[in-house]
């Protein structure tokens, strides 16, 4: 898989294998080319229309199937029609993930904070504390990020679903446990509970529905 393998690939000792010496049966080559270029799976009759009736398709298709067995591509038969497809175990290679860094919305950060401090909490409780409704997407985002998980239901009227944080949450925020979160008194001392500052900026936001 790496440069060291140059000249000593798992196959290199077989490079002289006559299989690949260009002496391929022209019929096998023709069937291979036809199936490769076909825009839909082909029946043996349809293949014969290209390669001619004298080709023993049963034999040729079997040979081709053997050729490709174990490769990244395989020849398969479905309902009497033949086509090439990428090997099933290669599916994960054919998709590529692209990570896009995205910052959490303010609503999501607040929701996450409430869950972290007061878990397990229901959606209604989070809304009561924030004073605004949470859009469906907010909890989804936190779950997608892997920081919040559903944590059972509370016994009682409506049996509301509860939310709690995950181990991934602790890891991401560099916490050993939830007890490492600064308490209310710490927040007050740090000026983070300063009511004037907080209420001024939020007043307008609160009257508006959140839009994330």
């Amino acid at each position, binding site marked *: 898989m790496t440069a060291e393998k140059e000249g000593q690939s798992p196959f290199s000792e077989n490079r002289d294998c006559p299989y690949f010496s260009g002496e391929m049966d022209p019929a096998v080559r023709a069937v291979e080319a036809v199936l490769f270029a076909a825009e839909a799976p082909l029946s043996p009759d349809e293949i014969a229309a290209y390669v001619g009736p004298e080709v023993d398709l049963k034999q040729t298709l079997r040979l081709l199937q053997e050729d490709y067995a174990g490769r990244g591509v395989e020849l398969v038969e479905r309902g009497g029609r033949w086509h090439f497809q990428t090997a099933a175990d290669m599916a994960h290679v054919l998709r*590529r993930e*692209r990570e896009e860094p995205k910052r*959490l919305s*303010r609503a*999501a950060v607040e929701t996450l904070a409430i869950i972290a401090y007061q878990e397990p909490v229901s959606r209604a409780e989070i809304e009561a504390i924030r004073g605004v409704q949470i859009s469906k997407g907010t909890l989804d985002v936190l779950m997608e*990020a892997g920081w919040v998980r559903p944590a059972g239901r509370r016994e009682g009227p409506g049996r509301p679903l509860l939310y709690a944080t995950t181990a991934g949450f602790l890891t991401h*925020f560099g916490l050993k446990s939830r007890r490492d979160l600064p308490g209310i008194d710490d927040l007050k001392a740090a000026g*983070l509970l*300063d009511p004037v*500052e907080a209420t001024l900026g939020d007043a307008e936001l609160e009257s508006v529905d959140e839009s994330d």
Partner: protein
Amino acid sequence: MTTPESDALTIDIDGWEGPLDLLLALARAQKVDLRELSILALVEQYLAFIADAKALKLEIAADYLVMAAWLAYLKSALLLPKDPTIDPSPEELALRLQIRLQRLQAMREAGARLMARDRIGRDVFLRGQPEGLRVVRRNDWQADLYELIAAYGAVMARTRPVVHQVMRRPVMSLDEALQRVEAMLGHQVDWTRIEAFLPGISDPQLRRSALASGFVAALELAKQGKAELKQDEAFSPLFVRAA
């Protein structure tokens, strides 16, 4: 010199893509390598061709006539004795024409060779039903601990204003201060700093309130003529004594 095969070339003039194309066709009729081409013979063929076309009263596009005029000039210049003052020389012009014809011929051949290659969709084929590759976008959500804590602080602060309104700050009322300062002032004949009239208080907020009330009380007593105030300069200690 071959006789101009004008019969073979009396094709509708629209069949040629310009005078250069016609010249190239005539040149190839000489059946020699273009590098060996006799420009003089070519010029004569072209002029003969145009003359024939005129005789047949075919419509001849202007550019063919322009080329004919230019070639007639080139022919006479080539036939006349050399005049070293003419630049470029007729021989040079003839060479350039020859190179232009070679170049057009070369590109024409190159085009033909290109078209004859094994072309996709005609000779070779790509996979007919590719599964396709997919790019899946994944969000990498980011937030830091400070943001989280600050957000919690903000939420808590927002939900607390009720609590704050209920709480009463410790204050010293003006009446209280007035009584206290007036009572103490009766014994005080010397200038005394205003702080001395205030009760010993440790709560800094109550202290500030008492100082403010005490100051206003002293002003009120001075207004009533019961007290005198003195300050050496701005922001220096304030002194009070009975009037």
